[in-house]
Each structure stands twice: as structure tokens, then as C-alpha cells.
């Protein structure tokens, strides 16, 4: 993974060298410096990513939009067209707006060069595979899966992208912040000695809980309220805490060898506001009856406390969840010669503080992606983000089962597959898994 670090920092140099990069053998329009972009997932993060992509490069033009829901696609196009500074770069024809459970397949067949993916993470494997097969570069939001099978599909798509010379960049923006890149170089060069410990945290208050609006099927509602279902979001440790887990993996240049974890959800199960909303949803889909409302309250947990043991024996803490209490967010890495906040500085024998340019990682990731496409040296972060996603999923499995989860087991033995097949999705049947007990079987 250090090669990727180098590639990223190399890309900074490439950007600095100016816009005269030669367009060589790329998958975007010949003889043009335009990048035709399609967006998959027109929610808040999708619109944000699109904005950041437009901001990153003047050659970006939006030509297609896709989402599960038609109204979100239309609303997104309308919103973009109202914005003076960018509206001449929005060229979404009526026949380039796609919706439904197969919208990713239709989007992959349009003439876009680059697809931005920001739907719920459950479907990322098949979305990425379809895009890479169709020859698209991809920016994908994190995480990139919710189960073991999904992560493996990402790894496979990533290999295929490499063969085809396609770029995959992922929305773990910390990997593109100059400060962190410079810091990590130093950590990898031994500035804090051998890594022997670390901590990472994402603990916050709760999140939205969305009701069911008119015309929605029950599966539609689940997808709209996706955060609350493990098969859709991967649980909070995967959906949110992955940022911090990815930084730990970055420090150690790869995933942990072994994971132990505990956790539970007594706050979500007794949160009266959420229960009230869940009962409303239950009534909506059950002819006014509240019987069996519990499954509408979601199945994700509210806290997971995990220990990652990396191949060199270092044991690191991962601390995540949602509830009232003290919020935490960040990372710390501990070495034999010092420590680092993984953000801006090093303390200890080789104390150091980054004093260079600070960039918005959420824009920089798009700049790096597009620069890599233009230079004919496409970045490919697919394997790495699949590994970080699988690390989070591994911790979740360790907590849900009460067993120790080995990386080898995840990669070679686990048969876990939570997401419905494409055919099952098209049939429209909702999907509920039982809330994990803390001693679920290992699958």
C-alpha cells in the first residue's frame, strides 16, 4: 500500500506541474480535455461529491444522473441548473436520467468517462463491476460494501480496472490531504519508530430516521432509511468509522491480522423518538397495525469497541457508536520513538509539525483522480478501500458473534453475503435480518 501513498504524493507533483499533461490513451473523449461525468446516487453525499468534482476540474461536465428514486434525479438536475457558475457544465439530457433498482446498469452504458458513486454502500460491488466492465473511471464513496462478498467483488473489479487502465478513487479523503500524506511518509520512514499501538474513534450522537412517504414500497423505504439496516449500511462502524479505521490501516500499511470486539444496541432499542417513527412506518405497511414494529426500528448496533491486532503484533483500539455521551473523532498512532495524531504532527524523538498548504481533501481526491486519468497513470484505490471496508466489517462480525475474526478467515473462509441479488431486488421484496445477539454464528 505504500506504493499508493507514493502515487498520491507523486500526483501532487503532477498537479503542480500544471495542466499541460498529455492526454494519452484515456477512456475519455479523444482530443478533448472534457471529462464527462455521471452521478449514481443523488442524495446529500452524491450532490456533495458532484459539487466537489466540478470544483476540482474545469473540464468536468455532468451528462447523466441516476438514483433509485426519480424525484431525486429530477431534483438534482433542477438544482444544478439553477446555479449560475456551473449550469453551462450541466448537460443532462432527459434520456440520461435513470432510476430504479437497475439504474446503475443503465448508467454504465452511457457515454460518461467517469462515474461518481454515492448510493448506500450495499450495492457498490455490482455497481463498480458494471462500471469497470463498461470502461468507466470511478470515484466511489466509502465504504464500498456491507458484507464479505461485496468487498471481494470490489477487489475483483479493482483487478479488472488495473488491467483495463481505469482509475478508482475512493472518498476516504484523509488519504488525499497533503498534511496527512506528508505525515504518513514520515511515519512509514520510521519517525516514530516501530508502531506498537494506536487508537481511533468515531463516537457521536444519533442520526436521522426517515419515515415512509407516499408511493414508496417497503423495500424503497428500507433503501431510503438505509443507515439503520446492516445489510444496507454495514452498521455505523462500517459506514462512518471506516474513515478512522482506514487511517490506522494506512499507518500499518495494510489490514489487521486479527480482530476482537464487543458491542450492542440498547440505546437504539429504547430510543423513544425512533421507536415512535418505527411504529409509524409499521402502520404504513401493515394496514394501520403496530404489531411487529420492532423490525422497522432497524438492526444496527449503537456501539462497537474493537481491538485490531496488526501483523507486527501491535494492538489498536477502535471505538465507535452513536448515543448521548461524549463525542470522539480522530486517531492516534503510538511508536517506540514517539506518537502522532495522524493529522498534522509528530511528537517524540523526531517531533515535527506540518506547515505546508492545507487542502480540502474532499476536493483534492477529485483533483488527484482526474490528474491521474489525464496523465495516463490512473490511481487505483480499489483494493485498499475494500481492505479497509473489510476491516470494519470484520470488527462488526467479531462483535456480532463474540468470536475472534482472523483476516485469513475473512478472505478465505467467510461465506457472508447479506445483500439481495439483483433479481431479488427487482422483485421488490423487503429484507430484514434479526438483530445480532452478540453470539451469532460465524458465516
Amino acid at each position, binding site marked *: 500500500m505504500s506504493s499508493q501513498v507514493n502515487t498520491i504524493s507523486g500526483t501532487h507533483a503532477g498537479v503542480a506541474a500544471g495542466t499541460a499533461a498529455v492526454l494519452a490513451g484515456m477512456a475519455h473523449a479523444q482530443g478533448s480535455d472534457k471529462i464527462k461525468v455521471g452521478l449514481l446516487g443523488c442524495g446529500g453525499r452524491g450532490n456533495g461529491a458532484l459539487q466537489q468534482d466540478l470544483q476540482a476540474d474545469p473540464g468536468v461536465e455532468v451528462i447523466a444522473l441516476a438514483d433509485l428514486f426519480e424525484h431525486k434525479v429530477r431534483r438534482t438536475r433542477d438544482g444544478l441548473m439553477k446555479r449560475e457558475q456551473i449550469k453551462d457544465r450541466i448537460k443532462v439530457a432527459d434520456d440520461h436520467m435513470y432510476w430504479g433498482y437497475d439504474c446503475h446498469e443503465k448508467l454504465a452504458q452511457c457515454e460518461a468517462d467517469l462515474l461518481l458513486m454515492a448510493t448506500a454502500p450495499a450495492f457498490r460491488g455490482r455497481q463498480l463491476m458494471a462500471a469497470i466492465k463498461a470502461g468507466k473511471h470511478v470515484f466511489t464513496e466509502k465504504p464500498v460494501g456491507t458484507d464479505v462478498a461485496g468487498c471481494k467483488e470490489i477487489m475483483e473489479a479493482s483487478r479488472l480496472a488495473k488491467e483495463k487502465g481505469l482509475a478508482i478513487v475512493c472518498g476516504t479523503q484523509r488519504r488525499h490531504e497533503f498534511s496527512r500524506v506528508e505525515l504518513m511518509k514520515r511515519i512509514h520512514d520510521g519517525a516514530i519508530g516501530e508502531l506498537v499501538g494506536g487508537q481511533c474513534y468515531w463516537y457521536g450522537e444519533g442520526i436521522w430516521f426517515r419515515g415512509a412517504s407516499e408511493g414508496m414500497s417497503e423495500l424503497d423505504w428500507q433503501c431510503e432509511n438505509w443507515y439503520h439496516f446492516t445489510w444496507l449500511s454495514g452498521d455505523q462502524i462500517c459506514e462512518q468509522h471506516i474513515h478512522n479505521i482506514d487511517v490506522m490501516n494506512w499507518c500499518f500499511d495494510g489490514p489487521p491480522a486479527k480482530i476482537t470486539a464487543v458491542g450492542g444496541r440498547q440505546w437504539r432499542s*429504547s430510543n423513544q423518538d425512533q421507536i415512535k417513527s418505527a411504529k409509524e412506518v409499521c402502520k404504513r405497511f401493515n394496514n394501520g397495525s403496530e404489531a411487529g414494529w420492532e423490525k422497522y426500528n432497524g438492526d444496527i448496533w449503537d456501539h462497537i469497541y474493537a481491538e485490531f491486532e496488526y501483523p507486527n503484533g*501491535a494492538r489498536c483500539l477502535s471505538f465507535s457508536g452513536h448515543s448521548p*455521551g461524549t463525542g470522539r473523532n480522530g486517531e492516534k498512532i503510538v511508536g517506540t520513538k514517539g506518537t502522532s495524531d495522524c493529522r498534522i504532527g509528530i511528537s517524540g524523538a523526531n517531533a515535527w509539525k506540518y506547515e505546508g498548504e492545507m487542502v480540502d481533501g474532499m476536493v483534492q481526491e477529485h483533483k488527484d483522480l482526474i490528474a491521474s486519468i489525464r496523465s495516463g497513470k490512473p490511481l487505483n484505490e480499489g483494493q485498499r478501500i475494500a481492505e479497509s471496508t473489510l476491516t470494519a466489517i470484520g470488527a462488526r462480525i467479531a462483535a456480532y458473534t463474540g468470536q475472534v475474526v482472523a483476516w485469513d478467515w475473512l478472505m478465505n473462509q467467510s461465506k457472508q453475503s447479506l445483500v439481495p441479488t439483483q433479481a431479488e431486488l427487482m422483485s421488490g421484496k423487503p429484507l430484514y435480518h434479526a438483530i445480532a445477539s*452478540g453470539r451469532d454464528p460465524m458465516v
Partner: protein
Amino acid sequence: MTAGTLVLSGAAGPLAYAQGSDEIRVGVVGCGGRGSGAAHNCVSSSPGVKIVALADAFEDRLRKLKTDFSVPDNRCFVGLDAYKQLLALDDINLVILATPPGFRPPQFAEAIRRGKNVFMEKPVAVCPAGAKMVIEASDLATQKGLGVVAGTQRRHQFEYVETMKRIHDGAIGDLVSAQCYWNMGGLWVSERQPGQGDVEWQIRNWLYFTWASGDHICEQHVHNLDVVNWAFNDVQPEAVHGLGGRQYRTDPKYGNIFDHFGVEFTYPGDVKTISMCRQIEGTANNVSERVVGTKGWSDCCGTIVGENNWRYRGPRSDAYVQEHTDLIKSIRAGKPLNEGKRIAESTLCAIMGRESAYSRQQFTRSWFMNRCTLNLVPAEGLKLSDAMPVPPAAVPGQYQLAGWVQERRGRRG
């Protein structure tokens, strides 16, 4: 910290054992499984030790030891106040305190007041108020020249003692991280019998009520937390932040305790440690400690890996016996060990971890010691027949951390 290594200066006052004899005459308060075990361990640890009086809340729990040691009826005391009657006996010079930990602070204080040497099971409290009582009574024990040893037997286990000496001498450099675990299955349950009042049932089934056991992080995991404190030379953590819950073991017969905790302790110098404990049947077991330094790491019990590789190859003994050997030897030598404050502090770590997990609030030790008003010490005059509803298991946002004033805070996460 064997008897030989800890010399309490100024403790050469009159020994609190029977005049003209060096016989150790022992009273046992709490005659259940652990009390019985400790009584036998104590007797086999040293010559001249006799079990001479017994006390328990329940007559049926007392029967086994009564038979084992032929203790006469008039020296067997039953009831919640039985310990007072036992401690009033003048011929007893050592007491074993092994009732549920919630009762320990008043019983320990009374034992010291009565001038008895004490062996007490861990943990020694379930709340800060109780832990402070124990610390105060320990100070008094020092003044009175009384021995106090706690049932954290690792402190008396040779391989731990030798490893810790080396860690303190710098064998693994400065400590930068540590982990400790008590992950295992469940323990026994005492189901409620017809006619049992709230208090009687909760005492018989004490593991599962926070007021009685302190929850399993306190009742069990204190062993491992104590080892980490030991590695840090008994310098206490400055802050704590815990998570936990009751996810699997939810039946009412399991009272109101959690089935898992994960706690981060922050020691001076921003050194953070992992503490994890779980009681869920069928899950992965791990009961151990590990400390990491700038020059290597250690399992705390016989292995050091790094610049100063080392493995313990000396003798091994039964630490459950050794702790009594060390206590009695120290009493007889006129240099009584006093572990009271130390075990109270390790117990406090466990209690802090629990309260942080119950509330999901991060707080400092200083806040906990000075501002937290939690007091679970059983009321004087508690009766077995008293009504005592079981409080609900803690839920963050609903659990009121005693003395905590919620600061205004912006949305995060």
C-alpha cells in the same frame, strides 16, 4: 510485592493477635464458594492457623465450613448483621471478608475498628463512596499496625512478581500502551425461589446486581485492571471512557448488569490502554494482560519480549494460598502488609469504567473522586425481607451519572 519486599516502617506496634501465642485465629465473614475457598487456602498456607468463627447472611451457606472446621454453634452467626457479632469476638485476630463486594466497605471498616488483620476478597467496593471508606479504613489499619491483603492473587504469584520487578526496572522501557481482558462465558445463577424477598434473592444472586457485585467489570475484570495498574507502578489513570451493554444476557434473572464492556483508560502522559470484558456463553475466551513499552512488551506473567528477552523459570506456587502465606508471614514478622488502598484504587478503576460505560460519558479521575456522588453502600438496618425493586439496566441518555452536570454541547459525529 512479596512480604519481603514491602517493609512498612512505623508498623512495629502491638500485634493484633492473641497474647502469648502466635496462633492465627480466623473468623470468616461470607461462607459461600469464595469464602470457603479462602478459609481452606488460609489454613493450608501456614502453620498455627485455625478457623474459629463464621458469619453469613444465610444459615444454609454457613453449614459447609461449620462442618469442615468443627466450629461450635455459639461461634456461628447468621444474618446481615452477623459480621458485627463475629468481629466483636476478642480472640479473633484475622478475618476473611468474602461477602458480596457491595457489603465490603462497612465490613472492612468495622474489622479495622475492631483491630483485626484482614484478608478481603476483591473487589472491595462497588461505588466511590464505598471505595473511600476502604481507603480511610486502610489508613487506620496502617496506624494500628494491622495487615490487609486483598484477593487479587496475581500480586502474590511469583511469575507476576518477578516480571513486574523487571518492568519497573525498565526492561521494556517506558510504557506506551497496555491491554487487558476478561472475555469468557457466563457464571452461576441463583434463580428466585418462592417466598424469597427482593433483598434475599438479590444477595443470593448477587453477581447480577450492580449494588451487590459492582457489575462484572468490577467483580471479575478488576484482576486484570489491577495488573495494568501494577505495571504502571500504581500510578492511577487520569481519564476514562467506556462503552458497554446488555445485548445477549437479557433475562430478568440476570438482574441489571451488562454482559460486555470496552473501556479506554488514559494514564499520565496520554498513554491509553484497552480494557475489554465479556460474559456471554459460547464466545471467545481471553483472560490476560499485556503491557507495551518502548523497548519491548510483556504478558506480565513470565515473558518479556524485546531488547531484554526473558522468561520466568523459577518456582510456581498456588497464588490463592500464597497470598495468605504472605499476609500471615508479614503479621508474624511485625511488618504487616497493607494492600487496602491499592486494591481500593484498582476497584475504583473498574467502577469508573462501569460508570463511564453506563453513561457513555468520558470523565477524569479527579471528577470521579471529587464530584461523583454515587453511593451504593447498603443502608444500615437492611433486612432480607425488604422490598428492593431492581433498577433497569443502564441506557445512555437515561442513566443518571450521579453528580454529573451535562454541559451544553454542539452536535458531533
